[in-house]
């Protein structure tokens, strides 16, 4: 019965893919059974696509509001829409413009920082450090303004980089593209072992090779530096860390999760919170992520960062 249902949903995926080029609708998952992914000519799951927010900015969080002196509120997605309304006389020149305010509280940078910091500490999924290393975690957290190298514009590194916004796949490799600093990684998936030289190097994204375990693409990464962190609250790692990233497509959802093996400092492997990214069928142009330049550190007088 389950096989039959799976067959039906497979057929549905095949039909939609054929009809639209890219399936627009997320196929149903009858009885919670995994929905088969579309496949490449070589039979492997097709991970090609723009995933999640997809690298076109904040993705509609916020927008532009114009608030009239009498309290009426106009909501626009884009400043150009506001400009048109102003030119057409639908908004008065006296209306106050509010840019990029997704909601009341989190439009305030201080509150949003505090809330995010509190949430990560209170509800986060911290790596389980061995006894003797927690003091270092606490020190780094309390002094994150100076110690967290992403504050001085260093790359976040794997796995803090998170899942890619775009995947290009061939039978030999996958190209993982990130909005963050316009970063890209090319990962061989032809079964080769780690490059011995790169695997002994110390880099932010490490040396990565991928293999298929069934329909899951498993990417093994070694050769890290010990500069990057695993997460914002002082979660450091050593340069002997190994990261295993898992990519699995179900229907039009990409599941991503990473496991960090760092037995020198961790009691057990750390599993990142799983991410589920919907296929993004937007054809909006990608925006460039501008370079990061730090001007702030010398002006930070307190340790507060949330």
């Amino acid at each position, binding site marked *: 019965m389950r096989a039959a249902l799976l067959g039906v949903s497979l057929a549905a995926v095949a039909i939609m893919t054929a009809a639209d080029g890219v399936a627009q609708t997320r196929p149903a998952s009858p009885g919670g059974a995994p929905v088969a992914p579309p496949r490449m000519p070589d039979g492997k799951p097709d991970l090609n696509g723009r995933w999640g927010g997809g690298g076109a900015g904040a993705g509609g969080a916020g927008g532009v509001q114009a608030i009239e002196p009498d309290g009426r509120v106009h909501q626009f997605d884009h400043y150009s829409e506001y400009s048109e309304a102003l030119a057409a006389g639908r908004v008065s020149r006296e209306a106050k413009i509010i840019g990029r305010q997704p909601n009341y509280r989190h439009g305030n940078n201080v509150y*949003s920082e505090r809330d995010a910091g509190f949430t990560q500490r209170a509800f986060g999924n911290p790596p389980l450090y061995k006894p003797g290393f927690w003091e270092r975690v606490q020190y780094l957290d309390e002094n994150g303004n100076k110690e967290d190298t992403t504050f001085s514009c260093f790359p976040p590194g794997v796995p803090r980089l998170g899942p890619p916004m775009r995947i290009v796949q061939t039978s030999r490799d996958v190209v993982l593209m990130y909005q963050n600093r316009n970063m890209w990684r090319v990962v061989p998936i032809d079964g080769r072992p780690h490059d011995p030289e790169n695997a002994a190097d110390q880099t932010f994204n490490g040396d990565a090779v991928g293999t298929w375990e069934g329909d899951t693409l498993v990417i093994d990464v070694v050769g890290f530096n010990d500069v990057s962190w695993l997460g914002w609250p002082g979660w450091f790692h050593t340069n002997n860390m190994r990261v295993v990233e898992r990519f699995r497509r179900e229907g039009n959802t990409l599941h991503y999760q990473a496991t960090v093996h760092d037995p020198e400092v961790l009691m057990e492997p750390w599993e990142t919170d799983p991410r589920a990214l919907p296929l993004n069928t937007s054809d909006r142009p990608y925006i460039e992520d501008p370079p990061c330049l730090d001007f702030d550190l010398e002006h930070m007088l307190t340790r507060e960062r949330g």
Partner: protein
Amino acid sequence: MRYSLAGAAILGAVLGAAAEARAHHAVQAAFDQDDHVTITGVLTKVLWINPHVRWFLDVKDDSGNVTTWTISGAGPGGFRDIGISGRDVFKTGQTYTAIAARARDGSPNGYILTFILPDGRKIDLWHQYKSEPK
């Protein structure tokens, strides 16, 4: 595990896609949101860079001395997404007024709350929570 899943959901809601972009950079450590400074000057440069956008304003005092103020804002991605990075909004050579959170170290730096454009319109880039309307 239940807690960490709940945490993931809350975090996702709070940070959204921003989690993997760049976090805010401890705004409160450098700027005092309760101490506002209002400056008026000629916009000489805008840098749409990470992690914070920078506006540079040349401010002339009564004796004619010019001080260059650096005003920061949020990251460029959100501004670009809603079109505020357009060249029709910030024009170098024109006079802008910035209401900003003052730098704690007394340097000519601020974190932008509200811009007053050359034509008098106001653009608010930071909710002040206590007094601002929803």
